[in-house]
């Protein structure tokens, strides 16, 4: 199929309502390949719902969601979308608590996901290599044998980012990565996400304005389910409407 758009991720006119409440209202965003984008907005602005639509958890009432200009995300389910190459980090860290860090990473490792393959699979040296590389990148080398449930909140966030990396997705959707992190960890996370852009397309949802500033990328402001403003952080923060609904005077 010929791509109908050059955008990596193309959302147009998305609407979702729950019992009359419009979580998304004619939302349109597009992300270029390799772009890093921050999405901000007050609670209930539709940030998580937007991610739910992209990852197939929620079906929109109206609108278009295209991946690589040719995959209609509104027709696929979570597993298909994940295997196409869209990875997601959840707002609440959701690592598998009864598996060790290493086992969590192994589950995320890119590869055939069929049950049969899971039975037959033996980790190859290059798999172990990429797992230990990611572990050191997210600072969990010493915690490989620890159970996911025993990690601190910040470590869980890191583990989840590590799992995301091992999936080798084309698009990373990262929901509030800095929540529960110390200032230095937050900066480290921002650096990591910045380093991923280019190779991957990254969309970050965040509340922490310092973190968004550290990302130094284009910002989209959501409000009541649609885009209120888009541009550099200084551009959107000088927007009167944005100041009214979100940043406060």
């Amino acid at each position, binding site marked *: 199929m010929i791509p109908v758009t050059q955008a990596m991720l193309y959302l147009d006119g998305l609407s979702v309502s729950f019992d009359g409440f419009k979580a998304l209202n004619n939302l349109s965003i597009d992300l270029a390949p390799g772009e890093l984008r921050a999405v901000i907005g007050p609670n209930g602005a539709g940030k998580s719902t937007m991610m739910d639509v992209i990852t197939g958890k929620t079906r929109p009432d109206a609108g278009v969601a295209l991946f690589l200009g040719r995959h209609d995300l509104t027709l696929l389910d979570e597993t298909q979308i994940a295997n196409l190459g869209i990875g997601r980090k959840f707002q609440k860290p959701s690592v*598998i608590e*009864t598996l060790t860090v290493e086992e969590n990473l192994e589950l995320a490792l890119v590869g055939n*996901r069929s*049950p049969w393959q899971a039975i037959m699979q033996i980790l190859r040296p290059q798999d172990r290599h990429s797992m230990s590389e990611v572990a050191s990148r997210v600072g969990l080398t010493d915690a490989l044998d620890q159970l996911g449930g025993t990690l601190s909140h910040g470590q869980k966030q890191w583990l989840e980012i590590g799992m995301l990396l091992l999936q080798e997705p084309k698009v990373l959707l990262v929901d509030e990565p800095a929540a529960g992190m110390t200032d230095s960890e937050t900066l480290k996370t921002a650096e990591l996400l910045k380093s991923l852009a280019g190779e991957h397309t990254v969309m970050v949802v965040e509340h922490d304005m310092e973190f968004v500033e550290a990302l130094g990328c284009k910002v989209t402001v959501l409000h009541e389910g649609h885009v209120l403003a888009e541009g550099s952080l200084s551009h959107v923060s000088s927007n009167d409407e944005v100041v009214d609904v979100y940043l406060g005077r």
Partner: protein
Amino acid sequence: MIGLRLRQLVFASIVALIAYVFAANVMLPASMGMALDSYSLTIIGKYLCFAMLAVALDLVWGYCGILSLGHAAFFSLGGYAMGMYLMRQIGERGTYGHPVLPDFMVFLNWEQLPWFWYGFDAFWFAGLMIFFAPGMLAFVFGWFAFRSRVSGVYLSIITQALTYALMLAFFRNEMGFGGNNGLTDFKDLLGYPLASNGVRVWLMLASGLALLLSLFLCQKLLATKFGRVLVAVRDSESRTRFLGYRVEHFKLFAFVMSAMIAGLAGALYVPQVGIINPGEFSPLASIEVVVWVALGGRGSLYGAALGAIVVNAAKTFFTGSYPEAWLFFLGAMFVISTLYLPRGILGALEDLAQQVKGNAPKLSTEELS
């Protein structure tokens, strides 16, 4: 480490039991007086079959979070498949002496054998059906249930409905499975008389080996990445889906495998007790299996096997000596295990051993070995 040792202990006890019976009843002359009598052999054989059923349930409940309240249905289907073979072995020795039709069909004035009884005169065919019938039911049921993402308590309720529906169906004479009375009056198995002590020994040994084999197979399966995906499904199903795993396929695989183990257990059970009737499908029977697993230690295959043996040994004792107290005792065991033994007997023993050693108990986890 201690957990590992306890599991080895359970495994070794089963091996020792098999070795003892083999030595005392098969190898040594009867004059030694060490051989077990028929009654004990049958009782032990029954417990071993129940232990297998518990292992089957633990595979899906303990490791994949599917609380099946209908596992006795798979057990019974395996039992019926074996029962049908045994019925056809009776031949002309039945009360009515019909060469092909089992007694109950003659009694119902049936002219010929229903099509689904064809082939059951051959042991190999019955042997296949022992796995195929429960496996197929689990596959069809699981295909629809898991694809529609029915899970948790809703899944438990429909498994309960499944076994109840099967019970009602098998009670009907028109179904062709002997109705209310089920299948009984078996004469011989592979040409050997069932009543003989020798056959009972071999049936008990087969049950023990089948239990060891299912423990071994499940353990091997759980030690692969497949096992870790199952645990991930149990603990965070949607997360596993977002990682790109087709959760329903994993559940289906485990569910079908579990049903087949349950079927094999049922098939070994029926010749030992000498009867299979629709009562085996009763919802209560499936719930009892859940009690065995919970009490023994959910999420530990050996715990499940241990639980089945302990509860059934207690059942034999109480229903013999204090029949009126049995249900109270069963209820008490379930309450106690829920309140004080969240990880079952095996888990409690592990913690105890840890404390004796002077180590603080570890964070409770279901270990995968």
